[in-house]
């Protein structure tokens, strides 16, 4: 009742573009004129979400901020959807009724089947700016995903007004937490069981390279009920322990039956293994050899793993199903392991301070009394045992145990872990062409960037290197060999190849670039008004050793001096020496580089940029060799 009244009061507004404060137009692709979300929790399995949202869009990049869309599935439905389009003067030009919204299934191509669908406004703007006023009402049974408030929805969008109301007539116990409110105009009118927040006049945030994630510095309100409902299952949880317990009891437990034949197979497979680690390794290998990743998610299947027996029969499953299956196989050999919920992708924690259903992926944790725990990525057929890579490293995950949940951190790869070592001999001819023999070892996160080459075809491997080393001309490969040491997690590449004009001609001289293989060069634009810190997510190190053999009849004319660069962001050194053997000269280059993980305040940006500039400069050092006058 209340909610209805709130909306009608705003129906008469004039959305002319002129009324927007100029400070909100600066850097904005779109301005959220108002966004009112009213959530009414009638019961734990009956939630209504009403949205009234008005967005003015200034250009194509802003189109997506109209966000006139709703998702729905078996347990939620759309009661109402309507949009009115205004021109820049605020005159109504179009009205789109709910039946004219476009409906389609909502999932990525890698998901085989899901019942999730989306109904969206399919509107082609005739001119910019334009304004969309969107009204919707959605009903859902799944109160476990109560919407949070995230009023500054992205980069390059300003907010004139945004409000969030949570109505809770049944007085269901409620928790909420405010994040990054400081410095914003936010008012609230909360009561014990209900929430009401208003944000006004927040100018657009511009994206800055290497900055912390948007979520970490714009306002957010996290909201959860202590009693909730998910796809036919009720739950009670106010802390992670209880949440984990509920997930275990309702979603994970008793999914671990495996046919006797498979248990027998696994028992035989592990019978002569003496340690838990060795047994687990073999079981992980068994899973990798016998399953593949296929996502099928509908109903509770989006949240509960498929039965281990089904995975055993079908040989495929999603992350939940494959993790649960591996857990069941380990259990059959008396090895304890835990289903662990995580955010896969860029580093993001399951929030330790706020208990609410979170995460988008599941991995397996095997406790290890003698050292660090083991972690398994069960959707991969190729990852080595206990390898997480940059997909799930260094972040809080929810470990789901029979007696409750707990937050634990996955392994972090340090700058020394993330090492690439290159050794290369390069033979030059008088035209600057080269033949090279290269050996490279990769560890840690870099391992994950290259090891899949092993399973690629010859053609794809060549294409990879052609692309990676595109600055070389006319490459021909004579050998591409790999050694994938999965047990120690090290990938070795041995590559023999030749190419044209490594050294560029300058009359009778040749200019020889001394960093034969280069890391990807970043170039950072000038930004005198940097607002946010510089953040490097992972450290890395490189150790390179290049030997250049000069062509017959050439001598070194000039060698650059040795250099060391020491900064708080990292360091680099380059040592250059020459030697002579049988009348043939050679140049020896030792290059070492380390990039630190860390966060530095915005004022450091110019200094950081200078560091990168200096690194690029050192990477560009050249020697001059010259044909002897004979």
């Amino acid at each position, binding site marked *: 009742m209340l909610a209805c009244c709130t909306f009608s009061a705003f129906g008469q507004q004039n959305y002319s573009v002129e009324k927007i404060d100029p400070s909100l137009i600066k850097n904005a692709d779109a301005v959220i004129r108002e966004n009112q979300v009213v959530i009414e929790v009638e019961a734990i399995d009956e939630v209504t979400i009403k949205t009234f949202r008005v967005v003015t869009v200034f250009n194509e990049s802003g189109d997506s901020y109209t966000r006139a869309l709703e998702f729905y599935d078996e347990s939620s439905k759309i009661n109402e959807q309507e949009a009115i389009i205004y021109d820049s003067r605020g005159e109504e030009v179009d009205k789109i009724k709910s039946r004219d919204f476009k409906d389609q*299934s909502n999932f990525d191509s890698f998901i085989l089947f899901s019942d999730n669908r989306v109904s969206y406004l399919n509107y*082609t703007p005739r001119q910019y700016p334009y304004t969309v006023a969107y009204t919707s009402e959605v009903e859902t049974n799944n109160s476990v995903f109560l919407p949070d408030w995230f009023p500054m929805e992205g980069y390059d969008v300003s907010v004139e007004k945004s409000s969030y109301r949570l109505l809770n007539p049944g007085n269901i116990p409620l928790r909420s937490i405010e994040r990054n409110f400081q410095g914003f105009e936010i008012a609230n009118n909360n009561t014990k069981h209900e929430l009401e927040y208003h944000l006004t006049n927040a100018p657009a945030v511009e994206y800055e390279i290497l900055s912390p994630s948007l979520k970490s510095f714009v306002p957010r309100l996290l909201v959860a009920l202590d009693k909730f409902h998910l796809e036919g299952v009720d739950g009670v949880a106010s802390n992670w322990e209880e949440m984990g317990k509920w997930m275990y009891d309702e979603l994970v437990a008793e999914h671990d039956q495996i046919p006797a034949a498979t248990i027998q197979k696994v028992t035989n497979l592990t019978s002569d293994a003496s340690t838990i680690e060795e047994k687990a390794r073999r079981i992980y290998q068994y899973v990798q050899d016998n399953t*593949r990743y296929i996502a099928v998610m509908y109903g509770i299947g989006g949240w509960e793993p498929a039965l281990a027996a089904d995975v055993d029969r079908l040989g495929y499953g999603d992350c939940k199903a494959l993790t649960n299956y591996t857990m069941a196989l380990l259990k059959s050999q008396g090895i304890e392991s835990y289903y662990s919920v995580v955010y896969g992708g860029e580093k993001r924690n399951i929030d330790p301070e706020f208990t609410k259903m979170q995460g988008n992926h599941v991995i397996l944790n095997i406790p290890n009394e003698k050292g660090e725990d083991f972690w398994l990525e069960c959707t991969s057929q190729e990852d080595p045992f206990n390898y997480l890579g940059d997909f799930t490293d260094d972040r809080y995950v929810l470990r789901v145990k029979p007696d409750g949940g707990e937050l634990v951190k996955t392994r972090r790869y340090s700058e020394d872990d993330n090492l690439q070592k290159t050794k290369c001999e390069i033979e030059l001819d008088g035209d600057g062409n080269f033949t090279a023999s290269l050996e490279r070892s990769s560890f840690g996160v870099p391992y994950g960037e290259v090891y899949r080459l092993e399973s690629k*075809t010859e053609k794809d491997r060549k294409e990879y290197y052609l692309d990676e080393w*595109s600055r070389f001309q006319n490459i021909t490969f004579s050998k591409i060999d790999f050694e994938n040491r999965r047990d120690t997690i090290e990938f070795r590449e041995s590559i023999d190849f030749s190419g044209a004009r490594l050294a*560029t*001609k300058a*009359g009778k001289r040749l200019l020889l670039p001394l960093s034969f293989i280069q890391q990807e060069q970043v170039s950072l634009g000038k930004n005198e008004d940097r607002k946010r810190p510089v953040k490097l997510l992972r450290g890395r190190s490189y150790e390179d050793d290049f030997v250049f053999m000069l062509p017959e009849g050439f001598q070194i004319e000039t060698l650059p001096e040795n250099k060391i660069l020491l900064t708080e962001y990292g360091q680099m050194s380059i040592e250059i020496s020459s030697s002579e053997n049988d009348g043939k000269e050679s140049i020896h280059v030792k290059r070492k580089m380390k990039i630190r993980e860390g966060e530095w305040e915005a004022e450091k940006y110019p200094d950081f940029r200078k560091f990168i500039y200096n690194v690029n400069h050192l990477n560009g050092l050249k020697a001059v060799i010259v044909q002897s006058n004979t």
Partner: protein
Amino acid sequence: MSRSLLILFLALFSQVSFSQDFKFGKVSEEEVTEKQHPLEEEANAAILYKYRRTYYEYSQHIGFQLITEVHERVKIYNKDGFDWATKEVRSYIGGSDEEDVRGIKAYTYNLVDGKLVDEKLDKDDVIEEESSKFFKTTKFTMPAVKEGSVIEYKYEIVSPYVTSIDDFKLQYSIPINKLEVKVSIPEYLVYRKHYNLRSPIRFDIKEDSRRFKRGELEFRMNSYEIVKENIPAMVEEPYVDYIDNYAACIKWELQYTKFPQSTVENYSTDWEGVTKSIYNDIGLDKDINQTRYFEDDIDALIAGVSNPLEKAARIYSFVKKKVKWDEYYGFVPDKGPKKAYKEGLGNTADINLMLTAMLRYAKLNASPVLISTPDNGVPLFPTRDGFNYVISSLELEDGILLMDATDVTAAIGELPKRARNWQGRILRENGSSDWVPLYPQAHSSYSSRMNIKFEDGQLDGIFSKTLNGLHAKKYRNQHFSKTEEEMNEAVTERMGDIEVEEIQVKNMHDVGADIGENYRFHTNYGLEQIGENLYLKPFLFETIKENPFKSKTRTYPIFYDFMSAEQKQVNIMVPEGFELVSLPESATYHLPENAGTFKFTAVENGGYLRVESIVVWNKPVFTAAEYESLKLFYDKIVEKQNETIVFGKLAQDDTAELSEGDE
């Protein structure tokens, strides 16, 4: 050539290695144990057997139905081949009657402890999904798939749409070991078959015709059969217009039907006929003769203008402003030009037919032109599906001017990339039709100039470039909607470490005029001081550093987009205290048959250097046979543009220092 010979040669050998039984369910141990494809060792998977039979079934109640039986056996060699274990079958549900997929049977075969074991696909694991209003997708993924698995499935598609037989794809991104295609068609329907002649693979077809009885009906059944072994996988290459243009396939063109007790109904014609039928269907007359809704606006717009080109230009830019494109293709208007005019939004037909109508109203010789976008391919025979888009044209004494008012950055006479494919069919007012070329007939030019001087060990320079034609259009496509500030940011960002100021971009919104971009820059990019010498790569950030053609071989033609003349000039003042030690040599290179020229010049003249690179491309498309020379030609461009100028410190500097020391 040699490759296909080799394959043929190998094919003869592999034949004898083991004979296979392709009856459903007769998967052999050898097939499961095979580690790699005998001919294409890079293949992640292979179609061991593909069977497709299409025939007509007659029943008293329903009449004719079109049945297609499919049986495939697929070998998965490695993990990258797992995608082939998921099958999707699309069926049409958009009409009054629906297509149906039925009778799915599928098994996975593995070797377990040395024994061949099969695993059946459960019916419950077959999923049906409405992917759109028009199509349903039936999907399944096979159980127990591992490296080495062989999977086998069969199903039927039952279609009430008897007058259209789907295209038969005869080539995939993995090899096919054995292909069997059978089609039987009652005499009532007469089809013509078309192979894709751009594919080098040829197929023999066995034809047969015999009498047939179904209930009361007696008719001749015409049948066709193809059996072919070892069809190689499609190759992936860059700079291809549309890969399916080169895949082996057969298309079935219905020519006419003659059912008992009814008259002959003609379906197929020549391009003239296709054009006419489209003309009639879309009621072009109606759309083009309806002028009332815009008359006042156009009258005002062209009042006092007599030059036809000027009239056309005004109308063309008026339409571009007035009606926005909704990003839908088609030669059939969506809402009709009149409504599109009122609402300011329409599809390609709404917009370009409106444009044609207005041009004609202005007494200009305008006509619509039907075209096929690149992703619609190049049709194999005269068919309405061969077109999917319409533009407008103006015929003048000295030629034809093409227009597409759906593209705001296209000048009059220019087409967007989506409209540059194959050729177009013009439909004249008198009812005649004709082909018109769609590729631009003139060169587009790119010319840049830099003036550089040395300042405190760095370079100070003025840069300016002028773009015309499609080069200008490309630039506008990227930046058209940018404000001046955003444009400055875009240039600054593109330049990275190079400091730029006084950025000026000219004529961004004056579509048709040349784009100009100027700025001052300050950098040490391209400059090295090593020992006593200075080394300079003169083209700085304008240097082409890489040859885009890296692969050793080429299968398909290379689409270079448009003819182009690219001139880059650099003027350098010899730095004070230095002298020129060496300058790259001037040189000229040609592509065979005048398809391209590269002229590199470097000269010194009284303390000034001028270095210039001129590359001219005289055709937009190169054949695969020309690849080698194209690659070499490009390599020369990269080589010469990357050569370095050397300046040496003047000896008198030393003397100057010495004499200072003397004092």
